[in-house]
């Protein structure tokens, strides 16, 4: 499909180079170095060039126009690979190219007075043809015009993010905030852990010496430990042996004269258990 024919310059010192694609044709005319006229030298000085876009448009220009094409169309093609909606080319320059619809708008401005700019609509295939033609000119060893291909780099992460709509950008943060709020709301519904408060330990010795003071002390202990006094402690006098001694269900140690260390030691820490008490072992 590509037809790159280096110039035929047997009679005149002018060389021609033609690059042809299905929808695009570029013809370069120039002179070799020092007017030697050797075709192998390549084109060192461009006299004119012509571009034909299918049957729709044909234009001629000079070196600055070719440079403008190379510096606008090739970066634009690269941006199109990433799906970027940016255009290329300056408004004051000879051409701009930008996306329009499903194709591309190529706006050519002539330097002639009282002439309107040429507005062309290209599809992807024509853009690819044009880029291939310009690529062939820039990379052809026979074209020694010193036109360098434009530098290309990957798009920044910021540019990629800016292409996304605001709704899409806010989707993840809003979803995360809603998730946190949902978890916090559900955590309020979870029942808190049951605090098992040990029963107050009756002190026999102090009861014999000062019965009134012991009762006040037990009430104070129950109030401070559990918050509400046990009705058994207030109505029924404390008995040294509980009616149903079950070590598995009884959280507090059984007061007995055989365990003086328990009685005289510090009060046991409250046991916090979210589980109900285990059934008695048969």
């Amino acid at each position: 499909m590509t037809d790159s024919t280096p110039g035929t310059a047997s009679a005149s010192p002018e060389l021609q180079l033609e690059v042809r694609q299905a929808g695009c044709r570029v013809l370069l005319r120039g002179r070799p170095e020092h007017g030697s006229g050797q075709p192998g030298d390549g084109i060192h000085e461009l006299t004119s060039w012509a571009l034909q876009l299918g049957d729709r448009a044909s234009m001629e220009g000079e070196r600055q126009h070719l440079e403008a094409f190379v510096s606008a169309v090739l970066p634009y093609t690269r941006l199109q690979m990433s799906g970027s909606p940016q255009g290329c080319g300056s408004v004051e320059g000879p051409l701009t190219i930008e996306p329009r619809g499903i194709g591309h708008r190529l706006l050519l401005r002539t330097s002639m007075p009282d002439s309107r700019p040429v507005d062309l609509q290209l599809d992807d295939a024509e853009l690819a043809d044009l880029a291939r033609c310009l690529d062939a000119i820039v990379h052809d060893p026979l074209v020694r015009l010193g036109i360098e291909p434009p530098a290309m780099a990957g798009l920044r992460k910021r540019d990629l993010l800016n292409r996304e709509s605001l709704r899409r950008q806010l989707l993840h943060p809003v979803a995360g905030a809603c998730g946190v709020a949902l978890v916090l709301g559900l955590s309020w519904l979870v029942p808190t852990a049951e605090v098992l408060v040990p029963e107050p330990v009756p002190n026999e010795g102090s009861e014999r010496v000062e019965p009134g003071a012991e009762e006040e002390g037990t009430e104070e202990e129950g109030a401070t430990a559990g918050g509400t006094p046990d009705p058994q402690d207030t109505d029924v006098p404390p008995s040294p042996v509980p009616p149903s001694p079950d070590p598995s269900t009884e959280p507090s140690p059984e007061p007995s004269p055989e365990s003086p260390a328990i009685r005289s030691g510090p009060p046991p820490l409250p046991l916090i258990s979210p589980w109900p008490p285990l059934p008695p072992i048969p």
Partner: protein
Amino acid sequence: MAIPDNPRLRISRHGLERLDLLLVAVEALDLNGGEAMLWTMQQKGYLAVIPNRVEFWKKRSCNPLRRYPRRETLRPEEIIVMVNLVCHLSERLYPILRQLISSTVPEALSAARMERFVTRLRRLVRERMNPKRAAVQQFEDPHHCQAMARTLVRILAFSAGPGGPRRLIAHLQDGLQP
């Protein structure tokens, strides 16, 4: 097809995915694409970097979307070989690619060609990619699959030509800079 020699050349994770998807698209366009890749590598002298088809398969499996991905990245010379390979295959397939993206081709004919390509692409993606990944699951959506196929065809078409490798490398490096 010259890529500036850069020993610190690297591509993004998205680039790894895209590079393998482009090769899958080439296989969907050309039924003998897998063998054409190996033949091209032999003709272009890339076997010094990727010596055989097993190594080539391993390099392609660096794509995180693969069913059995390899947790490694490509070395700079491997990136250059893979990119040159894609661009060379695009050059070969350019007439087909052009027909798929041209607006002058009759719409019914273009739609039928694209439908055939999309069907093959979806089948290859189902075979080789991890169906648990969201990016792969989106291929089951006909709308998304059609759009993705068109995007891959456009990238392949713009990758053809002498300047194609530079454009493709730049595209694969999207998102590397903050």
